[in-house]
């Protein structure tokens, strides 16, 4: 009996310690736009991410790099709770957005996604006109004034470097554009409702080099206004566009993704602290 009480007391005190540790870490982390703290992620019984803690600074571009299966896309999609569609997916630990727990009971995923937009690997315009594709998010967010919507659509099409190519055919189908144009249309659609964070899941991997260059130029422009997190398989792209880089790797035993190293992109690429980071960026594996 006493032993049982003792065990329970131990569990309780360890929980308290763990919680207060979280608190201390969290207080220091509040200055970051996004802060992941001991974040775990599971698909059913399979653990995809293990104990990931990562800070993401406001108005910067953070690149997530690592070989396939290391969990970088899983982490990216966890930031705006895209996994909610999958009933077997489960998160543990914390991700804070401006100090608010993304997985907390008071976070509405619909409102969260209006603050955290996403650009996908393959261009996925709606079967609507070019104009309506961009205006879609505005209307979802409750914009009613047609003039304001039209102004915002033009503004973001400029930002996405697409305006000159589509200004004469705004009422044509978005599916009639080329792949690169479609992806820039999707970027315009994502930034139109003024999210604070933009998640990009290999946004240029399905595109030719010229389109890739245009997307990267657009990202530079967007950095003035948004916090961008990009998953990329291209180390050159990470080096070109990002301010910060985080390297993830799958643990060979548990098969769960873990954060190996994160820091300023220059430092990661010229002077990595971890041997595994060095091996990966120099192309020795992955």
């Amino acid at each position, binding site marked *: 009996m006493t032993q049982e009480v003792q065990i329970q007391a131990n569990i309780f005190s360890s929980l308290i310690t763990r919680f207060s540790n979280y608190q201390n870490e969290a207080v220091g982390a509040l200055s970051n736009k996004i802060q992941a703290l001991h974040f775990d992620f599971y698909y059913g019984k399979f653990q995809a991410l293990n104990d990931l803690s990562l800070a993401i600074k406001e108005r910067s571009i953070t690149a997530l790099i690592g070989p396939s299966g290391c969990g970088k896309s899983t982490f990216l999609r966890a930031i705006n709770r895209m996994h909610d569609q999958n009933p077997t997916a489960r998160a543990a630990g914390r991700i804070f957005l401006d100090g608010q727990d993304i997985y907390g009971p008071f976070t509405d995923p*619909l409102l*969260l996604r209006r603050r955290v937009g996403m650009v996908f690997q393959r261009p*996925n315009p*709606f*079967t609507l006109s070019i104009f309506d594709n961009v205006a*879609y998010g505005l209307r979802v967010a409750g914009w009613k004034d047609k003039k304001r919507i039209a102004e915002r659509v033009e503004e973001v099409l400029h930002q996405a470097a697409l305006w000159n190519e589509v200004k004469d055919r705004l009422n044509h189908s978005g599916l009639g554009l080329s792949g690169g144009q479609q992806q820039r249309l999707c970027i315009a659609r994502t930034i139109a409702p003024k999210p604070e964070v933009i998640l990009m899941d290999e946004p240029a991997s399905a595109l030719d080099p010229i389109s890739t260059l245009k997307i990267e130029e657009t990202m530079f422009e967007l950095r003035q206004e948004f916090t961008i997190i990009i998953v990329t398989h291209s180390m050159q792209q990470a080096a070109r566009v990002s301010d910060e880089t985080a390297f993830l790797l799958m643990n060979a035993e548990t098969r769960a993704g873990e954060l190996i190293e994160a820091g300023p992109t220059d430092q990661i690429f010229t002077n990595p602290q971890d041997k595994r980071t060095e091996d990966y960026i120099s192309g020795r594996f992955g």
Partner: protein
Amino acid sequence: MITQASNYKQRKIVDQFMRGLMVGATILALIPLFLILGYVIFRGASSLSLAFFTEAYKAPQMSLTGDVQSAGGVLHGIVGSILIVGASLLFALPIGILAGVFLAEYPANSVATTVRFATDVLSAAPSIVVGVVAYILIVQRTKQFSGLAGSVALAVLMIPVITRTTEEILKLVPHTVREAAIALGTPKWKTTFTVVLPAATSGIVTGALLAFARATGETAPLLLTVLGNNNLGYSLLEPLAALPLLTYKYTEMPFPELNDLAWGTALVLTGLVLSVNLLARWATRSRLK
């Protein structure tokens, strides 16, 4: 050279033989189609006239010389068919499309599994049985044969077709498009109605056209519900004429003139169903571009 293989000749012969077998079977399967089409056109084309499309039934009259004279047309059947099938589309389209949306967008629950199974059973139900059900549920209670009872019976036949085509088409809409809408903070129902359904419009139209074509040609459920009418009628609450019913009725008549009208009706009906089928194919093709 590959032709040096030991059993090359034998393989070649077997290949030719099997191909010939399949071509033969295909031709055999097509013969009835062309026989029916050809004969219906051959017999029916001569009775197509202006009066055929603009007049209703006229009772056969015997002249003083003993000839039986009969003219008139099938306008009442055309109007009746349009009214009955139109009303059944009004019932079947919303129910069928919404059920299809439910099956495609919320697939993993026991209700969806049950609905899917029930839909398959229903689509295989003999149409006369559906007619009997409509007869008992509507005609017996209202003590009145009516176009409306026929519409309900036809709607029951159309719903499974529309539901399953809608489901299949919605499954073809790429998941990434749904994700794009969800990532903008769109609620699921809104994603379905503003993004997924518009992307699948032409496919759903195809399903509706096929269901329409099937319902237009149905005769058995109409016999028990719509009954038939010799006069031009516009009220769905009364017995109406319908093209398949006229074909059935005029074929039995002892007057050759009316038999000719039956052939004409058959031609109109076949042409209608065929052109709707072709229209459906055309709609599907333009979707794939």
